[in-house]
């Protein structure tokens, strides 16, 4: 392929890619999550056993990733709605993406302790 012919897009394209990837990941988790919750109809022990894996440090890290995917998908989804329905949306799409990223980073810092605190306590002691 000759150099420089691959379209690499800009903010608009990469946010579209990230929206797809996070959406698909969240959807696959949703299937698993409905199945694990369905265990409450089997027995309290079966449910508590599976939920115990959700409390391990490795899965806590996956939960942090899930929170990251959901928050990005939610914030960027609101940006997409603004682009579609707000008269100034298309012109400000780039600025809105930076707004999305700033809010996302703040929320992810806020989620650090609540989501990962118990895992850190388990790994490194209180």
């Amino acid at each position, binding site marked *: 392929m000759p150099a420089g012919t691959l379209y690499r897009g800009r903010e608009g394209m990469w946010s579209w890619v990230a929206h*797809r990837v996070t*959406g*698909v990941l*969240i*959807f696959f988790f*949703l*299937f698993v999550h*409905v*199945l694990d*919750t*369905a265990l*409450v*109809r089997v*027995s*309290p*022990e079966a*449910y*508590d056993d599976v*939920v115990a894996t*959700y*409390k391990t440090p490795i899965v*806590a890290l996956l*939960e942090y990733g899930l*929170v990251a995917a*959901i*928050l990005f998908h*939610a914030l960027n*989804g*609101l940006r*997409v*709605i603004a682009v*579609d*329905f707000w008269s100034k949306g298309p012109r400000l799409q780039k600025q809105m993406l930076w707004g999305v990223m700033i809010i996302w980073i703040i929320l992810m810092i806020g*989620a650090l302790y*609540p*989501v990962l*605190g*118990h895992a850190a306590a388990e790994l490194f002691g209180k």
Partner: protein
Amino acid sequence: MSSDTSSAQAIGDVEGVSLYDVDNPAPYIEAPRKRTGKTPRSTRGNFEMAAWLFMRLSGIVLVVLVIGHLLIQLVLDGGVSKIGFAFVAGRWASPFWQVWDLLMLWLAMLHGTNGLRTVINDYAERANTRLWLKGLLYTATVFTIILGTLVIFTFDPNIR
């Protein structure tokens, strides 16, 4: 550019002499793409537009439902550590949280299914591949929605 724009000479023979007049009107030419009795009825409907609108409307509701869900399950009151059968039983004792979870289940499943339908349509190039992938997707969706709905409605805190 000045000499021949000033007088009637600028009007050529064709423009100057009309083939038609009041007694001999020009034939009526139908507007292009006008809908007539012969126009085939659209067979597609507005499904894609409805799906597009559904993604935006359900998205707004899901932002509230899912972020609230994350706050309750992962952040407040000890985060994930507190979750267990007893916690679920406590929440589903209230119709409010039953409706919350039911609405979240249905909207999230339909929102995600439509999203994956779009992804399949975009990337699966063979018609047969699309057919099978979407068949699998819809089967999994129907199964998951029915399962989740039954779990919420038939939940029994005294199962043991």
